[in-house]
């Protein structure tokens, strides 16, 4: 049986588990997306950000 069908049967069919899946999915998606964007931003701007220079002043 395919993964999709298993998922459908165990998670998406029942409202309670479905709602839980939505909530935790949102949480993990948001975290990964946020961390990924932030690290792209920091990689592009390496050396220019406050975090890169603050060690000189602490």
């Amino acid at each position: 049986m395919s993964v999709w069908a298993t998922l459908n049967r165990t998670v998406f069919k029942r409202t309670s588990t479905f709602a839980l899946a939505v909530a935790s999915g949102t949480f993990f998606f948001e975290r990964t997306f946020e961390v990924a964007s932030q690290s792209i931003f920091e990689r592009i701007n390496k050396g220019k950000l406050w975090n890169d220079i603050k060690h000189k002043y602490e």
Partner: protein
Amino acid sequence: MAAAVGRICGARLFRNTGIVGPQVCQLSTSSQGWTRNRKLLLSTLGVVGGGVGALLFALEQSVQASGSEAHPPHQPWSHDGWFQSLDHASVRRGYEVYKQVCRACHSLQYIAFRNLVNVTHTEAEAKAEAAEVMIKDGPDEEGNYFERPGKLSDYFPSPYPNENAARAANNGAYPPDLSLIVSGRKGGEDYIFSLLTGYMEAPAGIVLRDGQHYNPYFPGGAISMAQSLFDEAAEYSDGTPPTASQLAKDVATFLRWCSEPELDDRRLMTIKAIGMFSMLAAVAYYFKRHKWSTMKSRKLAYKPVSKK
């Protein structure tokens, strides 16, 4: 408005053609041609809209060409570009230039010392910067105003008590507040840089009044601010050689941060928006293919009605 929209495409918008009808007739525009009036209206709208746009553009360009001031050349700012953040080391040096040079005449009233924290200074450093200035506060219990050392929550104090005092000290010219100057001047930081480094001898025929100086980038050429940036006009704590152009570049970057403190956040937002919207675009593309698959793969058969 609704009536006008109704007149343009009314009959077609509101006619109920059942479930399949609209899908079929939207696939082709040739089945029902536009009426003459509709064509006329739409082409008039198009011509008028395009004409007004072209006129505005031409007027704007001719105003630029007719001025006597020099146009600031574009400098390769390190925060230019979709994803490029401010160079915080440069912002910090720019703050030092503002503090040592510009602050004698210009206020910076929308920036507070707490804004420097984790942008250019650590919290302890920002507190020390604040403590160096005296802030007028009060009234105290006896109703008197008094001076006290600054705190993180204080805004930058103005060099003059009011505008009249500022004018009196500067030959009648008012040194504008610099908090929003980069957003407020055409050319932004390019203009600031050119203005600060662009002083020169007035060409023959230009008459300068007392206290005026010639600067080709200033509208009219005669500016009441003397050249303030020279090599070594300020000192940098990080050891960068303080040449005039370095000072101008750093103070312009600092003023850009003052005008747009959210610049870094916006660059980060651009990255996030591109990520988010490309995912949504993928979903929309899939959904479109999904919905159209029936439309594209079906066959329409017309069965002539037999007369019998």
